[in-house]
């Protein structure tokens, strides 16, 4: 079930075509990665989704309804460039922002207290934003983004500026929100986090959507059929076999075992390999090497050039 459907969306700025008939869908209650190089059109798409700007052509459906003003209260948006009113107090500002999203003042107050206690930052309530450090400000901004319990959460580079401990907390929060039913759009360059968090992705380059689908499927698609094998007690003809048939590379001697990267032929499977080597050595481990998302990204973009 897709929560957001993007159909043939195009947008042009003066002389620059930011989005060119982009098509993809965002499944409900999943973490969706919106990936792409700088200037690809990600921010433009996010702004269209937030109704900050409008598409020139095409359609976007949220929950099967065309984009309309009431959707604004369903969306929580954490922009890449963070910012709050510096001279306004934290508590007051959070309430103001959630009121703008449609919460009543009382509701906002209650929810805010809950979040402040959860993050253990109740002492910050009356502080002015400029009195907080950058990391603290980001925490506050995150809370203001999720306070109104949005069904759709848009996070643009949410981890930038967070130290590892807080980044981890944030990751946990995101996963928790997902388990509570939120659909999350996650726009980033940080491919490691994509592998950890995203279920589906779309890769946008020069305004076009060049890759879409489940993360695992995509990695498989880009896989070079590589396998990592760790063994010991090889028989005499093992290395010969591995070299000629499986193009072994990256041989690493680990003392009590040897690690090697092998390339399977097109029709060959892991099972076939195992059958062949099982009698020729003691197998410690054997797994398929899926490309890292970094590599997928680079490859896809280069292919597209």
């Amino acid at each position: 079930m897709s929560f957001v459907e993007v159909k043939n969306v195009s947008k042009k700025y003066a002389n620059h075509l930011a989005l060119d008939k982009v098509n993809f869908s965002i499944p409900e209650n999943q973490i969706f990665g919106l990936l792409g190089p700088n200037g690809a059109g990600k921010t433009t798409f996010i702004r269209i989704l937030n109704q900050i700007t409008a598409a020139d052509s095409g359609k976007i459906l949220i929950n099967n309804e065309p984009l309309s003003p009431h959707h604004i209260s369903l969306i929580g948006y954490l922009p890449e460039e963070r910012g709050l009113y510096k001279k306004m107090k934290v508590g007051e500002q959070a309430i103001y922002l959630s009121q703008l999203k449609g919460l009543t003042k009382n509701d906002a107050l209650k929810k805010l207290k809950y979040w402040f206690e959860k993050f253990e930052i109740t002492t910050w309530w009356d502080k002015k934003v400029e009195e907080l450090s950058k990391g603290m400000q980001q925490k506050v901004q995150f809370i203001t983004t999720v306070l109104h319990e949005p069904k759709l959460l848009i996070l643009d580079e949410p981890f930038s500026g967070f130290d590892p401990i807080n980044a981890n907390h944030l990751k946990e929060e995101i996963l928790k929100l997902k388990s509570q039913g939120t659909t999350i759009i996650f726009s980033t360059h940080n491919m490691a986090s994509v592998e950890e968090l995203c279920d589906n992705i779309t890769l946008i380059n020069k305004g076009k959507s060049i890759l879409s689908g489940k993360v695992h499927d995509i990695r498989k698609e880009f896989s070079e059929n590589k396998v990592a094998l760790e063994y010991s007690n090889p028989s005499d003809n093992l290395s010969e076999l591995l070299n000629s048939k499986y193009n072994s590379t990256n041989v690493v001697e680990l003392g009590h075992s040897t690690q090697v990267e092998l390339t399977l032929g097109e029709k060959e499977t892991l099972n076939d390999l195992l059958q062949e080597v099982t009698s020729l050595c003691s197998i410690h481990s054997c797994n398929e090497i899926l490309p890292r998302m970094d590599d997928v990204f680079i490859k896809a973009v280069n292919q597209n050039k």
Partner: protein
Amino acid sequence: MNKIKLVIKREYLTRVRKKSFLIMTFLSPLFFGLLMIVPTLIALSSSSEEKLIAVIDEVGVYEQNLENIAGIKFEFLEHNLEEELRENFSITEYYAFLSIKKDTVSNEDIFRLISDNQIVIDVRDYVKGELRRVLIDKKLHSYEIEELDKIVKELSDVQVTLTTVKIDDLGGEKESAVEISMVISMLFAFISYFVIFIYGNQVMRGVSEEKSSRIVEVIISSIKPFQLMMGKIVGIALVALTQFILWIILTFGIVTIAQSVIPSTFEQDKLVEMIENSEANDFVAENEMSDFDFHQILNSVKEQNIGQMLFIFILYFIGGYFLYASFFAAVGSAVDAETDSQQFVLPITIPVIIGLYIAMFAFKAPHSPLAVWASMIPLTSPMVMLARLPFDVPMWEIIVSLIILAASFILSTWFAARIYRTGILMYGKKVTYKELWRWFKYSRK
């Protein structure tokens, strides 16, 4: 609509709670009141101590002829005492000494007023006046016309008291004080000028701040840019109105206190004499000053139908503010930092200054073509029409001017909104007028 109210509330509360607002609101009327009271108090206090002036007249004409006045007394000394007087001046009780000698080359009399400290302007002016009076007398006598001094005295006693009166619609009469109208007119012009500047600037700074702190992106994911802009403009307008109303209340309070502090007529004569002889009077003709009566002024103010004028003032304040505030909002959205805003602010301030300038002199010819046109053109009308108000501007002129102003600010707001909604998300671009025009034309959201 609800969301605009939220923005208005935030803009209003954050500014009204600031210390700077409270200080400006409460100190300004105080300052204004002091401006009125202090000079009077100083004049009163200095007139009470008597100043003794020693006179050494080597020409021999002036001594015995210079007359004393309340607070200044002449004492005529022998010529040979000058040396001694100079050496011991500080221990004498004299305030100053007047030395009169004849210049051997030009045959003119040379007058010098000497003291060990700074001589106040009133004393200098009085001495000068007296010397002149004696010289005139001397000259009159030299003509040897009979009874000439009597003729001259009769001439100078001729005084005309001209009362300016306005006929109202029912044929009744109302005494009007021209000076009051002038003061009110200039006051209005100044106030509207300041309001436009100070609060227009606040709009610009607010917009700029939102842009540079990046909060604007979060906000416009919740509300439309137009709602944000209007909320800000209206919120700040309310701050200005609040400040203005507080000022009026406080000023009335202080003026009432001032009325009781300044004693009525019996001290006024001294004041009037000093002022009459003073040279620092070029702004208002001397004859008018003799009608100077503080209490009369206050009564005239009440008669000026100040209620109606205040109401019209508020209408023009709103119109003028909204017109200029929309310009300031557009400028704030166009630049990345406040420092870049100067090049755009300048063309906005020029009509304001021109308007103020015309307004300041409107009292001289309130119905001249220049004044009338300037009170119709929306960029200058707030200042100029208000300056013309005390001079019985026909109602139709006011109504037409207000309609033009309203249409203009609706237009300018629409125009500014289009620039605003593109500008607030645009960073790093070098902004020129051509660029702004492009943003304006950029039709759909």
